């Protein structure tokens, strides 16, 4: 099952236990504690705080909301909006939909892979970039299309990849 997002498919059995400050997660849970059907807003709130949903926070949610960890994991892996690993400061998304594909998207993707040293759904060790292939960004007229956070780059070329990376390398991390 090669298409599975990498973050879901690999079990991190040997990774050291994450140590994070759960105060923010506790605050989010406090806010929704009595709301029926509170799992989604709690998880969204936690992702808002941490940029992803850390494992210790999942255990905390399970304990405080009395929901099985397995079910929380099920919800987190079902919705594309949730992330289980820290995400980069800049999310690079390249469309590989039909229109972009025929306009050469695969070469754009490969160039990004080469430049950043990461693959699909992966994050650079310095947490600057996360790269994602996406199905369609809804701007086929600009194909091939890439986005970095909310900035859009149409009519992408291999040269433009270099320019984008060079520019975002200069941007501050905060």
């Amino acid at each position, binding site marked *: *099952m090669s298409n599975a997002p990498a973050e*879901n*498919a690999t079990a991190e059995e040997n990774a050291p236990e994450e140590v994070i400050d759960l105060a923010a997660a506790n605050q989010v849970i406090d806010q929704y504690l009595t709301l029926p059907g509170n799992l989604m807003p709690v998880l969204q709130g936690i992702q808002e705080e941490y940029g992803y949903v850390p494992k210790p926070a999942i255990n905390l949610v399970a304990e405080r909301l009395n929901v*099985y*960890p397995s079910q929380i994991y099920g919800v987190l892996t079902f919705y*594309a909006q949730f992330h289980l690993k820290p995400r980069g400061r800049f999310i690079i998304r390249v469309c590989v939909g039909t229109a972009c594909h025929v306009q050469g998207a695969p070469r754009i993707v490969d160039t990004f892979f080469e430049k950043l040293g990461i693959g699909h759904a992966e994050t650079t060790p310095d947490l600057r970039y996360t790269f994602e292939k996406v199905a369609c960004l809804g701007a086929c007229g600009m194909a091939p299309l890439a986005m970095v956070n909310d900035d859009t780059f149409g009519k992408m070329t291999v040269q433009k990849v270099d320019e984008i990376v060079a520019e975002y390398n200069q941007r501050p991390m905060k």
Partner: protein
Amino acid sequence: MVNLTVDDKQIAVERDATIYDAAKAAGIRIPILCHDKKLHPFGGCRMCLVEVEQMKGRLIPACTTPVSEGMIVRTMTDEIIKARKLVLELLLLKHPLDCPVCDAAGDCDLQNLTYEYKVDANNFTDEKFHWEIDYDNPLIERDQNRCIHCGKCARICDEIVSYGAYSFVNRGIEAKIGTPFDGKLDCEYCGSCISVCPVGALIAKPFKFKARWWALNKVKSVCSYCGTGCQLTLGVKDDKVLTTIYDEDQGFHNGQLCGRGRFGYQFVNSDERLTTPLVRKNGTLQPVGWDEALELISTKLQEARKNDPSAVAALATPRLTNEELFLFRKLFKDVVGTDSIDHSAGYAHEALTAGLKESFGITASPSQIVDIQKSDLLLVIKTDAYETHPVIGFEINLGVKRKGVDLRIISDKTGKLAKLPKAVNYLHKPGCELLLVNALAKVIVDENLAAESAAAITGLDAYKGMLAGVDLNQVAAVTGVSLESIRELATAYAKAEKALILLPIGLGYPGHGKELAQALSNLALLAGKIGQEGSGLLVLGEKNNSQGAADLAIHPTAGGRDAAAIIDGCASGAVKILYIAGENPVVAYPDRAKVEKALDNAGFVVVLDLFLTDSAKRADVVLPVKSFAEKCGTFTSVGRHVQRIRKAIKAVGESRSDREVLADIIARLTGEGVAADSATLFKQIGCYSGVNYDALGDAGAIYPVNVSPKFVPVVGSVPATEEGKYALLTGSALYHCGTMSLSGVGPMLVCPEQYIELGRVDAGKLGVNDGDRLKVRSASGELSLAVKVGLRMPEGVVFSPYHFADASINSITSGKSVTWVSLSK
């Protein structure tokens, strides 16, 4: 009732029935993969599609569609067959089709339906799944490639087991059944998921490659662990019990089993089983023939019978059949003439044999297990009811989740039951149960909530007089349960139309004795909760035949020694001959050192057991006896349920049943033969005269009782505490029952050694984590135990189970409900 037609058959069914239920009632089989009668309808697999005249134009899933008046259903048309074939083709598309090496082959719904619908070709092609197979788990092997996504494993784990080990993870074609973070499966190991898996995605590892399904002989029996009395089916081949087989139509529990019931059968064919009688010669136990061993025992008993019968004492395990217990009593009470017979250390059956005996005039619970789901309010003493009787725990789960039973728990820890929806756990300081129960009664009296029926019961005035002396503020202060909580619980209990109290008892629970049972009986009588369905008091006997041992009066009834006095008598020399049928006092009775000394000091000790236990090692004669799978007879479980066990395999080695041994000894002593077949013996048992042995069948029978209620005032006392020490509670571990499960292999794979469980705060204070070791020191000894950190234990309270022979907890406990210990690294 709703009338409808299924395949031209007219049928009337309940309003809430589905088309599937209606067809089943009409004797028409609709194929299913994702449906299970115990679970909520799911409608995922689309195998059960049928045609409904009134809903033409599409096929309707039978398992999720409720019936309606005048419905005309057809379950087998060309279109339906085509649709079902398509479903099977799509499932087979991804399925690995590794049937030759799959343990489910023969018992696989997918395989059987594929055959039935003649799916011999597939119109589609696709890549197979390539999920990694989980071989790591000692009991449950998970192969997601075989999974057909019926979700039954995840649903049963949620709906019935309430553990939630699995869930659907990912989405679309990537979806699979997963554990949190795709980690290792770490659960209660009840194996319910295996039992409902329609394919071989989940298989019992101990059974892997042991036998083909169709080669197994299936023998119906009753589980020989706890007192729940779950029916089970043994899978037998070549005189070996190889597995337990799921049968959804067995028993009140619909075939549900716990981990020890499902995986703990391996003691039967264990290599450790004793195979010949042993007699101590020159200080060592040496194999001898049966005749020599029995003659030796008979000679000793004959001498004592003539000279000093009171020097003979006997202990029997409540795992023997009723027939064996009957002969046991006959031998020692009638033939030898001693009243010193007992079991379960004396205290573990007192709730029934002394407590309820006085309060209700019977040595059994007035209620039954099926009352749990019929009740409005359950008052459970200790959340340990889940650990001691897991399948009763499932009943509680179902009652709370499906029937909206109001669950209240009086407990010294926050166990699993406390996590059920809307459950209220009244966490109290250790050893305060009796105080709390009396306080509840006091509130009921003070607020005039007592039932009118209570006025007619003997002893009410004395009881009220005693309650008048109860100081609620003091109880609240001592127990740690607030006055408001006590008031609220008492009111809820008294006002509930049907309220049932559950009291687990056993060797691990010295505090759950006569007095607590009486205090609870008083409470139930005061609130008028005895004598109606869904109400009353259910005392959960620890072992498979604890109830039978109480019924057959395997305890001193005429001034003889009880178990504790027998041990003391051995130590003092007053008891010269001790016959131990299956008990393991060295490990299970309080104060190990004392018991060891007593056994060494007794003149002549006979032990009958399956294994060379720590007690057997100290005996003069050891006799190998049969396990439950090798003999016939009856067990009586919680709620007075008498059920038959059947011989499934030949005797292991030269072992004989306790029944045969006892009959032989009686014959040698009296010179007259006694009938030793189960049917004849059962008919001689007076208290079961209302039960017809020949009509017991698979279902068994519940014998009736007449309750003659009486208030027996019992005063609670404030438990002593020791500053700076931890309160050590003993009890049952979920995976074990008594000491027999130690040889069950399955339970030992997931819970192999004695441990001490403590809360996070205490663990932090002591600076220990899971798996570290702690020195546990009490007044009577010290043990080094593995640490288990969890959420169950409140601050200052620690728990340790009693089952284990190595570092057994009874080396530091002395039979009090709380032992004060100091902990250090």
